[in-house]
């Protein structure tokens, strides 16, 4: 009974909300390490397995280090009809990794994702939270270059 009361007193408080805390930690640290999940479990007074259970339930949370830019290519049916395979091959060729991998320099991760709701201008992909639609191989190489350059100038800027 006591436990129940404790939970309800913190329920309106974002601090007690595991998913929000995980989203915040990933935003800050790039991914959810074992250490991060352990600390979160401790601060919320819950088991590590519960934290891990939530962290691995959602596809936008990652328990492995990710690239600075996470590319999510839509593999939904409407994008498949508009040749999303071409998109995947073009990206694989450009950055030299397969879906599920991260480039050795840590710039890009490549993932396949379910429908991202851009079917009216398929094929589409997300790079972090930015949407890119109407993809062709030329467009893709231009988009990737933009991120390459942004990443390089970030480094120069310190």
């Amino acid at each position, binding site marked *: 009974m006591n436990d129940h009361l404790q939970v309800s007193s913190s329920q309106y408080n974002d601090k*007690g909300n595991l998913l929000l805390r995980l989203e915040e930690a990933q935003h800050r640290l790039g991914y959810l390490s074992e250490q991060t999940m352990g600390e979160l479990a401790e601060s919320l007074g819950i088991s590590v397995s519960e934290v891990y259970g939530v962290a691995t339930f959602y596809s936008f949370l990652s328990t492995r280090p990710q690239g600075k830019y996470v590319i999510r290519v839509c593999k939904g*049916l409407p994008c498949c009809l508009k040749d999303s395979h071409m998109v995947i091959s073009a990206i694989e060729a450009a950055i030299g990794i397969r879906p599920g991998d991260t480039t050795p320099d840590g710039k890009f991760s490549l993932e396949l994702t379910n429908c991202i709701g851009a079917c009216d201008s398929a094929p589409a992909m997300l790079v972090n939270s930015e949407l890119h639609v109407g993809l062709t191989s030329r467009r893709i190489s231009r988009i990737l270059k933009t991120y390459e350059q942004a990443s390089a100038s970030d480094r120069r800027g310190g």
Partner: protein
Amino acid sequence: MPEQRVVLRNCGVINPGRIATYLAVDGFKALNKARGMTPEQVIQEVKDSGLRGRGGAGFPCGLKWELARNAPGDTKYVICNADEGEVGTFKDRYILANDPFMLIEGVTLAGYAIGADMGYIYLRAEYQYLNDSLVKAIGQAREQGLLVDFDITIRQGAGAYVCGEESALMDSIEGKRGEVRYRPPFPPTKGLWDQPTVINNVETLMNIPQIMLNGAGWYNDMGTERSKGTKVFSVSGDVSKPGVYEMVLGSPLRELVEGLAGAERVKAIQIGGATGRIVPYDMMDTPLSFEDILGAGAITVFDESRDMVDIVHKTLQFLAEESCGKCTPCREGTEVMAGILERFARGEGNERDIKDMERLSQAMMLSALCGLGQAAPNPVLDSLQYFRGEYESRMQEKRGSVAR
């Protein structure tokens, strides 16, 4: 039948970054009008309009509100479901990007009607790029003093199709894995943090200001007997003009797919996304309504060059991946079906596989915990009914010597 813009009336008309442009087209007049009425009167108006939920299930909106209004509880919540994850659906993205204000008005009206002081908009992770403009729009409404005794917060999803299901969505707002809850109790009596909660789709809430402004009679003049008003459709696939179209409910599928979206040589259409129905070309005159076929309004068009087994295989792969895993019929059933379809895709299916899928379909429809598992067999059964020949041509014993 031409387009009829009720929900989309301000899209492309107002500037979604400036509330003044919304106020100039009678924005927030409905809310003012409602505040001069009792919450019960507001609910009665919505009930009289005949508005049904636009997220796919079609539950009467006014009745849902009434249940929440009458449910005992000090704290009540309104949730706007903007977790538009159904494959082929993008209407809510279009609405959120082009007219956030009418949605905010709708959420606030719902809050007034049920006696909630807090509203959540649950925005899918894939739409994170819409977050800032939504926050800004809510901020402008707050500054204008339009959110009296009420506030709206955005909660971002983290990538899970099943969170579009209302009970999984509430678990996700609470910070947990988005797993489906056993019901009853239903959200209007026991929802978010076990409090009475109304959860409505973006499009449903977009209808509310127009109903309050123009009256229930105006609204229920549109549509069929059990499907009132308009519906916003997301049309994609093999069409020359993919996009978002709004039509009066009961309009024939053909008007939308061929007339508005410019499809040619149509073989089949998937209505309502992955868990929706697949219909062949000769059913093009089917009315789009709750009585016939509707779902959340995803229309994916396949022309004569498409392979139906391949389409259904991809659909079941998707459902197997996105099953939340809580109930066995869905978790295992979608996996098994995806496996069988994989064999057909390789040309190695057999007659027994078809029987297995049919038996499994019955079990899932009867025993799965939520709409995902209950409706997952739809694409399999529809394609077996209308395109059985395509399965038969993929059977091992019928392929002859080419197989070796």
